């Protein structure tokens, strides 16, 4: 039996299902009904010549006949409400303890943000456009491939990002320019051939190239 189910059964049988508790609850309800409600007091004070008939004012306190029945559904509602509020209270501590692994490629991209400004060769940090483009391509393409492939991102002199993935003697590069004016392109190379994809560059195209990097294809075989 699952832990939660067992806890429900124990608590249900321990407290709510027992007769003494029900009797105590009924006693409390009767005592409450004996207390005059504010509305009843108002009617008594102003008399029946008020705006409305007394019958129009429903009694606020439940009568003994209206003792809420302790159903299991009601118990479950309160049980889960307590659980959820307890989880909400502890959420900051729980979340702080949860470790969410960041893909290496993304971690290395984030590391590029550590430095900014310029040196002798141009910009040190990436531009916002380059970083956004590169992050989107890397995260989604690697997600499509289903593999966290180690990559080596570098910043060019204008703040663009060049990311290289290597596997043996094959490599794939994604070149994200500093601005939207220059084209994004993918370069792939193997000992036998190299090519550039500079039209219709998409995340799916990068994923396809990363898949080629990992698994290769038949066209890489030397021709006889």
């Amino acid at each position, binding site marked *: 039996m699952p832990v939660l189910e067992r806890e429900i059964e124990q608590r249900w049988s321990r407290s709510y299902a027992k007769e003494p508790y029900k009797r105590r609850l009924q006693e409390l309800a009767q005592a409450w009904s004996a207390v005059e409600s504010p509305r009843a007091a108002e009617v008594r004070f102003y008399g029946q010549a008020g705006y409305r008939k007394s019958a129009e004012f429903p009694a606020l306190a439940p009568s003994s006949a209206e003792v809420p029945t302790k159903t299991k559904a009601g118990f479950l509602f309160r049980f889960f409400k307590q659980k959820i509020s307890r989880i909400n209270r502890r959420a900051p501590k729980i979340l702080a303890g949860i470790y969410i692994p960041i893909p290496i490629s993304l971690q290395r991209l984030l590391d590029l943000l550590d430095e900014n400004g310029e*040196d*002798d*060769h*141009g910009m*040190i940090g990436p531009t916002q456009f380059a970083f956004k483009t590169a992050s989107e391509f890397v995260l989604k393409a690697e997600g499509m491939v289903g593999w966290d492939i180690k990559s080596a991102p570098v910043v*060019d*002199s*204008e703040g*663009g990002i*060049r990311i290289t993935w290597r596997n043996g003697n094959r*490599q794939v*590069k994604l*070149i994200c*320019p500093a601005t939207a004016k*220059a*084209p994004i*392109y993918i*370069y792939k*190379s193997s000992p036998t051939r*190299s*090519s*550039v994809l*500079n039209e219709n560059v998409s995340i799916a195209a990068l994923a396809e190239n990363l898949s080629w990097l990992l698994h290769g294809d038949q066209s890489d075989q030397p021709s006889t």
Partner: protein
Amino acid sequence: MRRPIDHDGLSVFDSYRIEQQACIESSLSCHGVATLHVGTLLDLGLTVIRDPGDFTRILITNAPFESPNDADQERLADTIAEGARVARLCRWRKK
């Protein structure tokens, strides 16, 4: 890598004319020094000339640009990078 503004070519130091430490200290920030062999560059079809403006520097006039958008130029840049030897690693930042 050769920047788009480097119209005259990729500028490198001549190791016969300057010490490694001087190379490092001449830049604003540096993570290391790598060497390129002139003979290898010539074999790759590159042109190497003395920088007319700076006696300690050499220009590789037809070195590929950093984002050439061309497969042959990318491959050439890779070949040059693979031929380079790391002479020294450092972490230098001019104050």
